[in-house]
């Protein structure tokens, strides 16, 4: 019997009516007709245009700023700098942890010092964008240029130039007295590492370096802000978290959140990069100073590269030991990540994920958060984890090679499962690591011979597996019932990849109606309860859960109402698949649609609410199989075949889950092979254009085949695990392992561009 190969498979265990289907997204028509309103599309009466003056130096003291000439230019309405921030408290918290106010504000408008090229110093509002640009060149800034430090090892060196004279290393929240570029050091320790290595037959230790890379969203950052005459501020912006922007603007400008309304416009990609807030507070200040006129600011691509947060470059040593039987007995990692100009690299997440796929008795992980003269890093899809996996997954590959065990078998043999203790302490709940590895092993791709070379190069295959813990956090949702048996759903998660659909599907499932009968809408911060960022793979999980709660609130009221109409006890009424019926009297039943038509006359409209901050978050595993062809003459690598397998818990909308898997995979491929911030010695990025910062095009890629594994998350009503991030964790390592298999070179540097491969081949 032959079966046809399915490039996109879903391994489902449980079927639902709506959950698991693939309806068309509700914002679809607007997005294919050009009608959707993205941030930069907003045009307001009396609009002014703002532009930001950015530092030309990677590290310098600001001696003075003179605006006289700029203000004299016709059409210039206002200028702002850090001097315009009002007095406020010492610590900022906009929903994502605490940070010192001077660091938070410094990254919005630098005060006494600039810490990276591209750092914002001042902003101008003018009658046109061209006038604003001309005005920037008339601002006279005097700098005292300082030596720059660009990588974590350089930053950690004893004699390194110090970025912040008020930064003292913290060790698990203990404030030390050491003024250095190391913002934080932490350690996870389990078992006895020395004993572990003593019991190992094979030990591999390697050191890896990865470059700074950017999320590369196609839509540049943009904001329009109006500081109204009644001192209420309205911000329209492209963001992953409208409430985060509200809180950040509130903290930066010392204005209460209730005076701020943030309208999230359609968002053209984020991947973590549109959580942090950049020009929004300056735009609001400009609006105020320009006489309460709306001010719009849209970044250029170079500003996006140089002025917003990429994900860090890193320096990592990983050492692992295993017995001859293939049991990994000890693992040690030393991870140093570049925070950029201010503390806050994702090294904590990297540390948490580095060995999480495995059951290892003796582990020590040290993490260092190091400030350097680069843009303050931001989140990028599973932040920190891809760096760590690039190291760990290559070391495991090498152990498999040394032990001559199939790399998937070695991983399976050591795979973490329910009950395995993680190095940072907690025990894994039900997870799908084994299931993902098994699906990889059994996949047509893994069972097939190596894809033949296209251009006569050398071919190889690699695998990798990655973990991401996912997050929960706060979400709110309202549902109101229309009289025709449809419902309107209001939620607060900006929709980057189809989450309106996946959230609406939760509600449809509860109410037993079709997806088309739920009309979802992403609301501004005045119109829905607090909802945290669209990030951390939380949206379908947590906002979906809020929709589930709101729908159940509606359902309970529907049951009450039906009982009122029938004159029976509500406990005797049930609702299933959109039909209300008496449990005892078969005569008594009516559809949701029929009841909806009667609501206004039987007690009034019904609205439901759901607000959650769930625990029960399910981590997700994701593995890749990749075949590459490497040209040994040039070092150029082509991807011949690529398969990604991920545990989605339950894929609410499989097409959008596949979309996440494919998008994450290709970002991983770009990161692996081409992308990097290419720095000059004095800290200038030499390639801030899409011409020189090479992201993958359709020409560079094969189809990305997918398998969705479903190991239900017991913590979620439909078993959902977040799916947005785990897929970017290990493609880089899988590609590295494939290159090794093709040409024999172990890649210790990323990107693995032709030059890096040639260098490794020659060394």
């Amino acid at each position, binding site marked *: 019997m032959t079966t046809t190969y399915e490039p996109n498979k879903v391994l489902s265990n449980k079927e639902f009516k709506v959950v698991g289907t693939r309806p068309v997204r509700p914002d679809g028509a607007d997005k294919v007709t050009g009608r959707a309103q993205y941030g930069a599309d907003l045009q307001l009466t009396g609009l002014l245009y703002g532009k930001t003056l950015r530092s030309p130096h990677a590290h310098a003291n600001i001696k003075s700023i003179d605006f006289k000439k700029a203000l004299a230019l016709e059409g210039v309405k206002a200028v702002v700098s850090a001097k315009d921030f009002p007095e406020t408290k010492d610590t900022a*918290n906009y929903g*994502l*942890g*605490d940070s010192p106010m001077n660091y938070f504000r410094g990254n919005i408008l630098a005060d006494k010092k600039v810490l990276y090229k591209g750092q914002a110093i001042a902003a101008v509002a003018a009658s046109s964008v061209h006038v604003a640009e001309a005005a920037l060149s008339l601002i006279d800034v005097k700098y005292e240029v300082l030596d720059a430090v660009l990588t974590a090892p350089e930053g950690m060196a004893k004699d390194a130039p110090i970025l912040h004279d008020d930064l003292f290393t913290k*060790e*698990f*929240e*203990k404030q030390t007295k050491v003024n250095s570029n190391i913002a934080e*050091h*932490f*350690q*996870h*320790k389990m078992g006895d590492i020395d004993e572990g290595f003593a019991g190992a037959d094979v030990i591999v230790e390697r050191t890896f370096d990865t470059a700074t890379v950017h*999320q590369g969203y196609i839509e540049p950052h943009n904001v329009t802000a109006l500081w109204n005459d009644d001192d209420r501020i309205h911000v329209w912006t492209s963001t992953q978290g409208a409430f985060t922007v509200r809180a950040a603007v509130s903290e930066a400008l010392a204005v209460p959140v209730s005076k701020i309304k943030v309208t999230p416009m359609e968002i053209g990609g*984020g*991947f*973590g*990069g549109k*959580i942090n807030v950049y020009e929004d507070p300056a735009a609001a200040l400009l609006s105020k100073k320009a006489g309460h006129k709306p001010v719009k600011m849209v970044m250029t691509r170079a500003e996006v590269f140089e002025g917003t947060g990429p994900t860090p470059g890193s320096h990592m040593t990983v050492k692992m030991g295993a017995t001859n039987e293939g049991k990994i007995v000890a693992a040690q990692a030393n991870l140093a990540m570049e925070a950029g100009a201010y503390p806050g690299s*994702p090294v*904590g*997440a990297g540390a*948490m994920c580095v060995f999480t796929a495995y059951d290892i008795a003796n582990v020590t992980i040290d993490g260092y958060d190091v400030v350097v003269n680069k843009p303050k890093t*931001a*989140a*990028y*899809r*599973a*932040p920190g984890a891809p760096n760590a996996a690039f190291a760990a997954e290559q070391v495991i590959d090498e152990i498999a090679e040394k032990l001559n065990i199939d790399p998937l078998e070695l991983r399976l043999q050591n795979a973490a499962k329910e009950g395995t203790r993680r190095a*940072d*302490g*907690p*025990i*894994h*709940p039900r997870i799908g690591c084994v299931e993902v590895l098994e699906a990889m092993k059994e996949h047509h791709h893994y069972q097939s011979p190596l894809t033949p070379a296209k251009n006569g190069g050398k071919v190889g295959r690699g695998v990798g597996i990655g973990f*991401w*813990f*996912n*997050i*929960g*956090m706060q979400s709110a949702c309202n549902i109101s019932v229309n009289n025709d048996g449809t419902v309107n759903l209001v939620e607060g998660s900006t929709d980057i990849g189809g989450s309106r659909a996946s959230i609406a599907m939760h509600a449809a499932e509860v109410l037993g109606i079709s997806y088309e009968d739920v009309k979802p809408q992403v609301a501004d911060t005045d119109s829905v309860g607090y909802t945290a960022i669209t*990030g*951390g*793979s*939380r949206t379908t999980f947590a906002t979906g859960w809020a929709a589930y709660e709101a729908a159940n609130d509606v359902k309970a009221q529907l049951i009450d109402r039906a009982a009122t109409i029938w004159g029976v006890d509500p406990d005797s009424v049930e609702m299933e698949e959109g039909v209300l019926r008496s449990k005892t009297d078969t005569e008594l039943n009516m559809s949701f649609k029929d009841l909806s038509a009667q609501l206004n006359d039987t007690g009034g409209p019904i609205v439901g609410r759901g607000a959650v*901050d*769930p*625990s*029960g*978050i399910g981590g997700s595993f994701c593995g890749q199989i990749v075949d590459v062809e490497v040209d040994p003459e040039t070092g150029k690598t082509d991807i011949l075949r690529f398969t990604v397998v991920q545990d989605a818990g339950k894929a609410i909308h499989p097409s959008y889950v596949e979309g996440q898997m494919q998008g994450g995979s290709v970002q991983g491929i770009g990161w692996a092979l081409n992308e990097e911030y290419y720095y000059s010695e004095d800290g200038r990025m030499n390639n801030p254009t899409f011409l020189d910062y090479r992201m993958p095009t359709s020409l560079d890629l094969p189809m990305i085949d997918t398998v969705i594994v479903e190991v239900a998350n017991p*913590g979620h009503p439909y078993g959902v695990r*977040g799916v*947005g*991030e785990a897929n970017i964790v290990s493609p880089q390592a899988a590609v590295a392992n494939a290159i090794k298999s093709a040409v024999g070179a172990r890649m210790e540097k990323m990107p693995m561009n032709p030059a890096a491969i040639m260098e490794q081949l020659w060394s």
Partner: protein
Amino acid sequence: MAKVFIPSLMQELTDGQTQLDIQGSTVREIIKELEQSYPGVKDRLMDGFKLKGNINVAVDGEVSPIGVLAKVQENSEVHFLPALGGG
């Protein structure tokens, strides 16, 4: 008694103890109890009435969304972890 895991860089406060059995029905009570025996723990973990912004607590493997209000069972495991975010 709950099993409380002490982060390695905080073990200086617990005389090198890596794991302690502590009585308490919530994390808040556990920290209070810990503070009795090992002064300094509370300041390290908490900022006023709540956990420091950069610290999470996990009870039985679940990071608590309600911080120190999380309920702790007789045989629960309690871990203090660095807070993490995603993209």
